[in-house]
């Protein structure tokens, strides 16, 4: 059974989208009856169903050789992976948001969102009372690195969920979070003031695992990219 390729798959919506493409390439992984491990012996692949945020850990430690994961989670993990293929679904945006009133002031006179935080100007982001720029987020590493690359000192407060509450309750004036439809932001009277990064979902591999199994993995990626009708870069 050591010949099976192993892949960690994220629980949730992404799996449903991925599964139909896997089936098109002849891979059937059935996670029935709350099972977390499924094997397709004919296709030579075994899948592990893991929590999205734990997925990089399993691949980094070589428990799963491959994985399907968003850039946001990969960035926070800090591990190095082989990036085999960007998938055409599951895309989202990492955005900075604030309460509507402040957003209107910051964006007044503009027809579109600024393309980077530089366009907003650091002075306009500082808190008028203490002169600091503070942000609440689940994505601490990304947020710190993003603003430091822009030369902006930032106080980052880590939250694990319901990040939208932070500006409403006055924890920090800004949040950095993933935004898909924006409905949660709107419901809490928040608005996006800057899109920081497009987040894509990729198939990744443990580097050593890829080097040892590159021929089979390249074949798998090639089949999948054909099924997805995307260019794998080859």
């Amino acid at each position, binding site marked *: 059974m050591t010949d099976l390729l192993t892949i960690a798959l994220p629980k949730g919506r992404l799996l449903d989208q991925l599964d139909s493409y896997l089936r098109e390439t002849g891979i059937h992984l059935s996670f029935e009856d709350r099972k977390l491990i499924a094997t397709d012996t004919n296709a030579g692949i075994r899948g592990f169903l893991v929590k999205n945020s734990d997925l990089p*850990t399993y691949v*980094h*430690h070589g428990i799963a050789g491959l994985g399907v994961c968003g850039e946001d989670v990969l960035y926070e993990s800090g591990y190095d992976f082989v*990036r085999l293929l960007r998938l055409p679904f599951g895309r989202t945006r990492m955005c900075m948001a604030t309460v509507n009133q402040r957003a209107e002031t910051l964006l007044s006179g503009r027809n579109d969102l600024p393309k980077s935080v530089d366009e907003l100007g650091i002075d306009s982001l500082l808190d008028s009372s203490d002169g600091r720029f503070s942000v609440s987020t689940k994505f601490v590493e990304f947020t710190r690195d993003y603003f430091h690359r822009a030369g902006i000192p930032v106080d980052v407060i880590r939250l694990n969920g319901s990040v939208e509450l932070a500006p409403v309750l006055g924890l920090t004036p800004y949040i950095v979070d993933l935004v898909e439809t924006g409905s949660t932001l709107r419901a809490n009277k928040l608005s996006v003031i800057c899109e920081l990064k497009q987040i894509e979902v990729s198939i990744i591999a443990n580097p050593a*695992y890829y080097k040892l199994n*590159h021929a089979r993995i390249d074949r798998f990626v090639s089949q999948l990219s054909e099924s997805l009708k995307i260019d*794998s870069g*080859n």
Partner: protein
Amino acid sequence: MTTHTRAILDQPTGTEGLYLEDAWRHRNTAARLGALLESWGYLPVNSPMIDYHDAFAGLVSSELAREIYRLIDREGELIAIRSDATLFLAKHMARFLRPDMLPLRVYYSEAILRHARREDISRNEYFQIGAELVGSTGLAGELETLSLVLKTLDSVVPGRCVIHIGHRHIVDIVIDTLESQNRQYCLDALKSHDRQSLRRGLAETHTRDEAAALTRLLTTIHGQTSFRDLAHGELEHLPAGMVDAVRSDVDHILLLCNLLEQALPVLETQLKSDSIRIDLSEFGSQSYHTGLAFRAYVEGAEASVASGGRYDSLYGHFGIRSPAVGFSIMLRRLERLSPMEPLPDVQIIPADSTDFLKQLAVAEARRRDGDRVAFSFAPGEEPV
């Protein structure tokens, strides 16, 4: 949990302790590999555990820089704790090297200390054994290094390792053609084998066909024959300015791999020719790498078990102009994959204060015959 409890029960990250059988096996393996390296004419060296941090300015990658433990000595100097065996060895050796000593073959078997995140239990890089051939410019030195790393690995995990051989100079030729703001993007893409990003980055400077050809050249893993076919095919599509330089390096790698393949049976390893792969995405993890770069992998290890290459300008940084080529083996990663060596039996001889000297004589006689002998004391008894 109080700080005191944590101090007692936990350990700072960046190092590893070995105990009993584990330590015995580790030392046995290190001694065995040390003997092998000595049989090739390599002499042992021990580099200092600490050195002046400023000595390594500009030589460490940003990744390694973040992992170095630093301290301030009593004169206020910033001190770095040994985090990279090759760097510390080069600094140390450069103080004593003279041109008439070259070529010089040395090996080390020592611990390094690097910060690692607490949850990252897979580093296993803290004990390394490696060899360096200082003063060798040509193909022969590279062939010796590659032969030695394969021989060494095969002695621990017979027939199981593969080596991926790349060339830093080819990568430098390509990267140097790019706009400065695009270089790191493409290097990162190559490091992570991200073909889509690499091709996109290269296409900022080159035509689509050129970017595609370069991406295929740099990211496809090959045996010799398929690499020869691909490389010479792709050379026609490369930007005109880089064809001759890349062709020269490609021919160098092909010759090196061809000779290494012929060396395998002579080395009496259990490795087959398909354990040698050409992989230009291996370009050396540190900024001091220059030409040849390689990593070795073994099924079951979550990361490479050995890495190395050429670093012709490293000794120059410390005042001695001398090329060098070498490798490091992550000993702990390898040990965990090797067949478990049984601990030798220890014979137990009962002894107490009345007959200790008599039993000591018995034990010594058996030890002279090669046995391992220990005493067992009755409770409360102490030997006189």
